[in-house]
C-alpha cells in the first residue's frame, strides 16, 4: 500500500489502518527501537506503546510536514528513548534513593533549550553528508558504536575516531571554542 493511502485508510477503519501500517513498517520500527533498547523485553514493551500511540496520533499526521517514514521513525525513536530514560531512572533509584528526581524545565530553561536546538540544527546542516549520517546514527537513533561499525563496514576504532572528530567539530561550532578545551 502506498504511504499516501495509509492515513485515509486509518480514517475509514482505524484498526485496519494501523494493521496495514505495522505490516509495512513494523520491521523498520523494530530496527529503530532495537538500536536504542538492547533488552528484548524493553523492545517488545516499547513496540506495544508505539502501536498504542499510533492509534492515538496517526490521525494527526500531516503529510505536508514530512514523509510518513520520517514521522514514524521519529515516533519510534522518541518512544524508545523515553523507555530508556525510564529504565535509567529506575536503576538510579534502585542504586540510591537519594538520586536527584527529574523535574520539569522552567520557561527560561525551555527558551535556552530551543536556542541551542536551533544552533545545533544549523551546525548539523553544515556537516557533510557522511558526518550528518553519523550524527543521526549516534545521537538520534542512539546506535552503539559496534552497530554503526558493522552496518558501515568499518572497524569500531575507526568509528570512534570519526565520532571524536565530529564531536570536536560540533563543539567548535556550538561554543566557538577549539574543541579540545
Amino acid at each position, binding site marked *: 500500500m502506498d504511504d499516501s493511502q495509509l492515513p485515509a485508510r486509518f480514517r475509514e477503519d482505524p484498526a485496519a489502518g494501523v494493521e496495514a501500517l505495522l505490516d509495512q513498517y513494523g520491521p523498520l520500527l523494530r530496527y529503530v527501537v532495537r538500536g536504542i533498547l538492547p533488552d528484548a523485553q524493553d523492545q517488545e514493551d516499547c513496540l506495544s506503546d508505539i502501536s498504542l500511540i499510533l492509534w492515538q496520533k496517526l490521525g494527526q499526521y500531516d503529510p505536508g510536514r514530512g514523509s510518513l517514514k520520517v514521522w514514524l521513525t521519529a515516533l519510534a525513536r522518541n518512544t524508545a528513548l523515553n523507555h530508556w530514560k525510564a529504565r535509567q531512572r529506575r536503576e538510579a533509584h534502585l542504586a540510591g534513593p537519594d538520586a536527584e528526581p527529574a523535574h520539569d524545565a522552567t520557561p527560561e530553561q525551555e527558551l535556552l533549550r530551543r536556542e541551542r536546538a536551533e544552533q545545533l540544527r544549523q551546525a548539523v546542516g553544515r556537516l557533510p553528508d557522511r558526518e550528518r549520517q553519523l550524527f543521526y546514527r549516534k545521537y538520534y537513533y542512539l546506535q552503539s558504536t559496534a552497530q554503526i561499525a*558493522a552496518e558501515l563496514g568499518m572497524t569500531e576504532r575507526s568509528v570512534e575516531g570519526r565520532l571524536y572528530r565530529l564531536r570536536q567539530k560540533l563543539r567548535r561550532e556550538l561554543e566557538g571554542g577549539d574543541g579540545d578545551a
Partner: protein
Amino acid sequence: MRDWEPFDDALRDAAADLPPSEETVQAVTPFRTAVRYVTAGLCLSFLTLNGWYLQYLLPALGTFLTYLGFRSLRNNSRWFRFCWIISICEVIFLYIDVILLATRLPDVPVLTGLSILLRGALFWCLHRGLRQAAAETGHDSKGAPALWALVWYGVLVVFGLFWPVPGWIPFLGAAIAFVCILLSLLRVGRQLSQWGYETRAAPVHVSAGRLTAASIAALLALAVSLSLLANHLPAEAETAPLPSAETADIRAHLDGLGFPADLLAQLPSEELSKLVGADFCEISLDAWGDSTDNGVRYTDIQVRIAPETFRCYHFFTVNTPAAGLQNLLTVEPDSSAETVSDPAGQILWERDGTRYAADLTLSLDSYTAPLWGRTYETYTALFSYPFFTEARQGWAACTVSFPEDRRSACAILRYQTQSLRNLFPYRPLPEQPMVGMLNDMESQSYSYYDIAPEAPPPAG
C-alpha cells in the same frame, strides 16, 4: 582526552528536536548500503572499457565491491553467506587471473570454467537471499533481478562459446537487459529497506575503504612486479674476453681497412676468424635511418670477404631504460642476395666496471610486404639487457652473397623496444599492439654499399 559524556547527553537530548530528513532516514537504513555495493560491484564486473587498463581495473574494483556488500550481509541468511563465500573465491580467482595474465604461464581453462560457475552460483544465491529477505518482512518481492541476471549471464556464456562476435544489435540488447537487471536490483533493495528489512550486520576488522585500497594496491603491486619479471628475458652472460694474440693479425688487417677499433674490440675471436681474407670495408658511422628515436644508434659495416660476398655488420648502442624489457632485433639482408648464411650476434654491457657479453640466438623468419606481396627472409632475436647496467651495446651480422651483375645493395636492421603500456598482460614483443601509426618503439639502421667497388682502398 576529554570526557565527552555530558556533551553526548546534550546532543542526544537536542537531537529530539531535529528529526532527520527523508534522505538521511533512507541512508541510515543499512540494507541499502550493502545492496548498493553489490549492485555497483556487479555493474563494474561486467564493464569492459578498453584503454588505460580499465578492462582490468573496473572488474577488479567490481569484485571487491561485491565482496564488501556481501560481507555486510553475511550474517543475515545462509544464502547471503554463500554469496559472501563465493565473492571471496572470486577475489582469489582475480589474483590468480592477474598472475596468469602478467606472466608467461599458460591459461588454465579449468579456472575460466570455475569462475563462470561461481558467478552463476552467486546470482542463484543472491536470488534466494533476496526472496528470503522479502519473506522475512512478510512481503512478496515483485521482481527477480538476480534470477534474470543468471539467465542473462547464461546467454552471455553461450554467446561467448558459439558466437564470439555477435555484432552491435545483440550487444546493445545484452547491455540494455543488463541495465534493466541492475535497476530492478536497486528497486528490490529499495523495497526491502522500505519494508524495514533488518540486516544483522557483521562486525569487521578492516574498514571497507581501507580494505579496498589495500586490495587494489596489492593487486597493482602484484601485476607490476610480475609484469616486470615476465617481460625481462634473462641473458646467459659471460665476461667479455679480451682481444687474443691469435687474432692480432686479423685485427691489424681490418684496422688497416678502416674498421673502427672500438667496434672491432666487440667481436669475439671466432667472429674475427670469419673475416680472414677481407679486402674492403664499407663503413656507415651513423646508419640511423629516418625512423623513430627509441634510444638506439647504429653503425653499419660491410666487409668483403670474397668476390660478391660480404659479412654485413650492424653495431648498435642502446640508451633507454626499456632495454631491460623485451627487445626485438630483426636483420633484413638485401632481397637480391643469392644466399644469406651464418647469422650471429651478441649483446654487451657493463656492470661495476666489468664488461659482459651474451650470444644472441638469431632465428630465420619471414614476412610478406602487405602492398606488393613479396616475401622477405629475416633473422630475428628476442632478448633483454640486464637491469641496472651501463654501456649497452651489441652487434648482429650475417654473410650475404650476390650474383655477379649486382652493383649495390642495402642492409637493414630493425630494433624494437617495448612500450610500458604493453607490460600487462604479458605477450611476446612481436605480438604486442603497435604503438603509434608506424610503431613509435621501432627504429632502424639503413645503409647502402657497393658490391663491386671500382678500386678497393689499399690495405695497411
